[in-house]
């Protein structure tokens, strides 16, 4: 299935891309996806799937848009 991954803020520079489409097997979770794009597990972040925050291990569906962002605090 096809998933779009978008990185936010300094993650773009730190992890080398802004947005890309990935082909992943059925059953892939958000945690799998984060590992796939090499983002350190310990780095504080907020992950959203189609604009809503995810719970750990949430399963993805074809066509999902996953956004991985540092935890902003509104300046």
């Amino acid at each position: 299935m096809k998933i779009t991954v978008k990185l936010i803020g300094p993650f773009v520079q730190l992890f080398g891309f802004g947005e890309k489409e990935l082909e992943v097997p059925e059953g892939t979770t958000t945690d799998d996806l984060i590992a796939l794009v090499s983002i350190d597990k310990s780095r504080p972040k907020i992950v959203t799937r189609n604009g809503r925050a995810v719970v750990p291990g949430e399963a993805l569906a074809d066509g999902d848009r996953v956004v991985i962002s540092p935890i902003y605090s509104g300046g």
Partner: protein
Amino acid sequence: MNGWTGQFLRVNLTAKTHKIEAFSEEFARKWIGGRGFAAKILFDELAPGVDPLGPDNKFIVALGPIAGIPAPNTGKAVVAGKSPSTGGYGDGNLGTRVAEQLRKAGYDALIVEGRAASPTMLVIEDDKVELLPADAVWGKGTYETNDWIYAKYGKGVGVLNIGQAGENLVRYAVVRSMEGRAGGRTGMGAVMGSKLLKAIVVKGTKPIPQADPAGMKKVGTDDLREVHQIDKKSGWSIQSTNGVLAWCNEVAALPVRNFRKTHHPDAWKCDGERLNNARIATYGCPNCTMRCGIAIRDDEGRESELDYENIGLLGPNLEIFDLPEIGSLNYLCDDYGIDTMSGGCVLSFYADAVDHGAAPGSFRFGDAAAAKRLLGEIARRESEIGKILAEGSMRAAHKFGHGSIDYAMQVKGLEVAAYNCKFIPGMALAFGVSPIGAHHKESWVITFELKQTVRDSYGPEKAQKVIELQRIRGGLFEYIVSCRFPWIENGWSLEHYPKYFKLVSGLDWTLDDFWTVSDRVYAMLKLFWLREYPGTDRKLDYPPAVWFDPSNVDTEGPIAGRHLEYDKYDGLLQHYYDLRGYDRRGIPTWATLERLGVAAEGQAAAKFGTLT
């Protein structure tokens, strides 16, 4: 008195006099500084009902015990007075050398009273206080005025100045410093302008009294280095505050088209990545470890320093996505001394009102050239529309009528910061209960709402989080007067601040001790509002009506079909009041005032409004 200079400088522009006043250690411990000092002084000294733009209002510059001392991000000052936008308490903070220079001159606060007979510049050099003519720069923008001052006194002095907007009493005019910093979006620039006070220049040479100056110097210097290293590792400064724009666009929190939409396919054109790519220079405040001002070349070739708030509100909110065009609008606001946030909201309000046939004119969303012209007309109050819009969106809506108040994105008269809360109940509450009107600096809970709780929730956990953040952001950082960014964006522990406080004052306080001060200051601000608006009720703490409007929902995206609900919001507001110890109108009860040590102030306020 270690930790404080123990003195205020009071200047009367009408009488052309000044005096140095000592304050007690008890006063210092009770109010700490910055917003705490300003709230107490304004409450005690302003008669209720004074015209914010008249000579009886006072303009205050207040500093805190660590302001100006080398430590992470301490180069900040609070400017305060009765607000021309809201008619209530107003303040703002800005990065400025005044923080260090005023304390070195021997003062923890400057209180300016009266009105000068002609354009004036106040110059403070330690005990020497002069009122000098400023006719040469009256009518000039903030950049030229700042350069004129630097040419006379050198670049090391502390400077506060205003542009044409402040001179012409635009109700959302700001105070500017260091050519890029601005503060006091509650109209503090207009308060200076009403006094014909074009600029303040400060130079100090005395040591700032500290309990352990050597210890503070060592810890402060080490921590400056450490926070800078943390920032380099986190990468926050790469996109600075504007990193959040793309995220807001993804989670439906971006203001687009006067907050009617929450996201836009072209928002990427002005996001943090594009801003970083366009960067030609970086600026920060004194003692900054993570400089957030990213300058780009605007569409007229000028250098314009941008952050998220001004991009969000002068950009997508006006349906303008071209960074150099946004930069140009930002440059004009900065030069005129217009608050970029309220400026953006006032223009979007006008475009929306015209669009709905509620206001005259042809201004449309997306028209950057017309927006530039309008900013000039507002700053100079030179056209009928410019005069009306200079009053801010709430007053302009009352003038236009035709239901246009529904398009004014404001709370208590202050325009909303760049977070669209169409369906973010806790953040809507944060705007609603902010003590100066809709400002994000008091509390920001969006990530908490999306991650730790449920976006749909109106539960007490959100009210509790708003209070927790108010104690830190609107409390601690506003009265010790230091930038919140090291903590908030890079995780610098709050425990550092009692440590700094002990090194400068010798007082061994816990964070809980500070939270009591925060609650005291918030209670005082409520008393200030009660005295100005004796009929006040909970409706004063409601966010803009458009967020509750079922006809204004998103038709697609993560919050499609959703909007705030009145009864649920009212329940959330009640949670907030209950947790704070306020009555159903949102006024602190006698028991709360006594617990916080401000019963005497309650007695004073009770002459004007009922306390329960």
